[in-house]
């Protein structure tokens, strides 16, 4: 029992609720939201230290023993993602201060961001399937509000599709939960793992597993990504970056949890399907990223390539590949937020997202240009930046399992990603400078700090890999041994 486990959910929830009362006081809201994020980050660091020292931390809500009550479980995987969430949302909030505009700030922007983080953190920490659904909904409803906030034509049009897609996938989630409950009689993840290991994962159970795969694929944009390019290009930069960094990653987290803890008995069916979907996602995403000449479109298609690549690690299902996937997931959250922020700054400066109308930004904004260059290298996995290590491990894992095609597709799409992102660099930053500083539509004042902070994070993640890999290995260990998770939840009690 450890009450700290609940803090990353409670802090943003309570601060968000308090901020609703002080709607007009924007300075208070800014300060308070930064405070909440920093506090959540500090708690997750504390949790990481505790997990490292004493193993997986759990909390049984209301003191009800494991399979009967709701368990909250923090293993190293969740704690790492909690910390990354705090870093990403901190930078996006700093970016929002300068770019989001008074109107949105007065319309509950900050409370909604905090509720979104509540949902994200809740999804990472919960040890109960139905609670996962609730946390998903908390996150999604906040995201519905954030995506429509401002109410421009494009936002409304895209958000209808986004909302409907997510409503339908939430229904499927409930259907899958109902079927699983009928077959196992429990919804506690640890208990589910025990029951399915006892009864065996037969054909019917695998079908339910694939239903879960469809649900989470829709949320993670794994192959079912038709909703993503439109809806991620509609909202303002700070919100889009937050979505790119966090939302799809929660779906990925859920896939990892379900297919390492519960449905891990038939990897030749379920994990192979995940591998095929991942390969298709990578290919289609990379083709999209190359095809478009619109900054926002290129960046959103890059989100999918990242998702596909992380899934290649899960499909291989070896310790090395898992280590790679976890490392790459952390890298991906940071780097996707970073390139969205830089891309958004470019659009903010020039007033257009069409690459052919932008040129020579490096003349007036050298720092932005070089930061983008670093981000581009990191995204495509050039050593010593953070993308490299994850790619090496995942590729090694796919080769170990014998999925050579998967590793090959991963490497080919890396090159395509490099091409697509260099296209932005060469067309946007090189060439003749069209715009003098007076003609620009906006300024980079105050926007450079969050971008710089995320760049430092990606460099640290790459150069300081030696120190971080220790934590990632702990996360891998808890993912690859469901026993650790189960023992931590039941604490030696008899499993009914």
């Amino acid at each position: 029992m450890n009450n700290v486990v609940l803090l990353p959910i409670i802090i943003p929830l309570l601060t968000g609720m308090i901020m609703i009362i002080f709607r007009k006081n924007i300075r208070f809201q800014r300060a308070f939201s930064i405070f909440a994020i920093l506090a959540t980050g500090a708690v997750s660091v504390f949790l990481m230290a505790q997990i490292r020292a004493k193993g997986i931390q759990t909390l049984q809500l209301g003191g009800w023993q494991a399979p009967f009550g709701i368990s909250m479980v923090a293993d190293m995987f969740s704690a790492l993602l909690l910390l990354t969430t705090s870093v990403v949302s901190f930078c996006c909030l700093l970016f929002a201060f300068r770019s989001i505009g008074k109107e949105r700030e007065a319309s509950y922007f900050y409370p909604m961001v905090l509720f979104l983080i509540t949902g994200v953190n809740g999804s990472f920490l919960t040890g109960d399937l139905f609670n996962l659904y609730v946390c998903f909904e908390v996150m999604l409803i906040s995201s519905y509000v954030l995506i429509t906030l401002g109410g421009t034509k494009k936002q409304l049009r895209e958000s209808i599709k986004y909302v409907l897609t997510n409503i339908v996938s939430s229904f499927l989630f409930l259907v899958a939960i109902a079927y699983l409950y009928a077959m196992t009689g429990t919804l506690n993840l640890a208990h589910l793992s025990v029951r399915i290991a006892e009864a065996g994962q037969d054909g019917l159970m695998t079908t339910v597993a694939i239903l879960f795969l469809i649900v989470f694929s829709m949320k993670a944009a794994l192959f079912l990504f038709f909703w993503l390019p439109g809806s991620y290009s509609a909202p303002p930069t700070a919100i889009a970056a937050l979505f790119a960094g966090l939302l799809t990653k929660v779906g990925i987290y859920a896939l990892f949890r379900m297919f390492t803890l519960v449905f891990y008995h038939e990897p030749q069916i379920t994990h192979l399907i995940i591998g095929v979907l991942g390969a298709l996602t990578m290919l289609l995403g990379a083709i999209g990223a190359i095809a478009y000449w619109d900054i926002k479109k290129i960046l959103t298609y890059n989100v999918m390539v990242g998702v596909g690549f992380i899934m290649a690690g899960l499909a291989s299902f070896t310790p090395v590949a898992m280590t790679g996937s976890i490392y790459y997931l952390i890298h991906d959250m940071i780097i996707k937020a970073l390139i969205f922020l830089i891309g958004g700054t470019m659009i903010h400066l020039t007033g257009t997202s069409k690459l052919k109308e932008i040129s020579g930004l490096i003349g007036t904004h050298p720092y932005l240009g070089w930061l983008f260059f670093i981000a581009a290298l990191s995204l495509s996995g050039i050593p010593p930046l953070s993308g490299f290590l994850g790619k090496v491990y995942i590729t090694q894992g796919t080769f170990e399992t014998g999925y050579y095609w998967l590793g090959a597709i991963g490497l080919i799409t890396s090159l395509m990603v490099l091409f697509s992102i260099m296209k932005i660099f060469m067309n946007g930053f090189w060439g003749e400078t069209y715009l003098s500083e007076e003609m620009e539509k906006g300024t980079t004042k105050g926007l450079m700090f969050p971008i710089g902070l995320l760049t430092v994070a990606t460099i640290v993640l790459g150069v300081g890999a030696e120190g971080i890999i220790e934590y990632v290995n702990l996360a891998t260990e808890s993912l690859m041994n469901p026993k650790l998770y189960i023992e931590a939840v039941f604490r030696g009690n008899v499993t009914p």
Partner: protein
Amino acid sequence: METLMSILVGLLFSIGTYLILSKTLLRIVLGASIISHGVNLLILTMGGLKKGGLPLLGGNNLSYTDALPQALILTAIVINFAVTALFLVLCYRTYQVVGTDDSEQLRGNEDE
């Protein structure tokens, strides 16, 4: 009884799907709402219908009705209520701003 409920759930799902696939925004909202009822019934049916007595301590029954699906449905209803309300408002606002409730015309184009 379970079979009958399952058929009903299937019926609700097919009606909902039909409505969601139609063009008018209002019909889409109604379709989503109907599917949500189907989902709730499904959870109830999956928990097993009419088994034993009340799930209370100190009663005379040796077998109890499973109370968990009902708790799940309660939560699901509340969430679906909120989402449907939000979706309705969103559709109305879209109708006001864009000037159409035909999803065909909501595709939009790149240059605006």
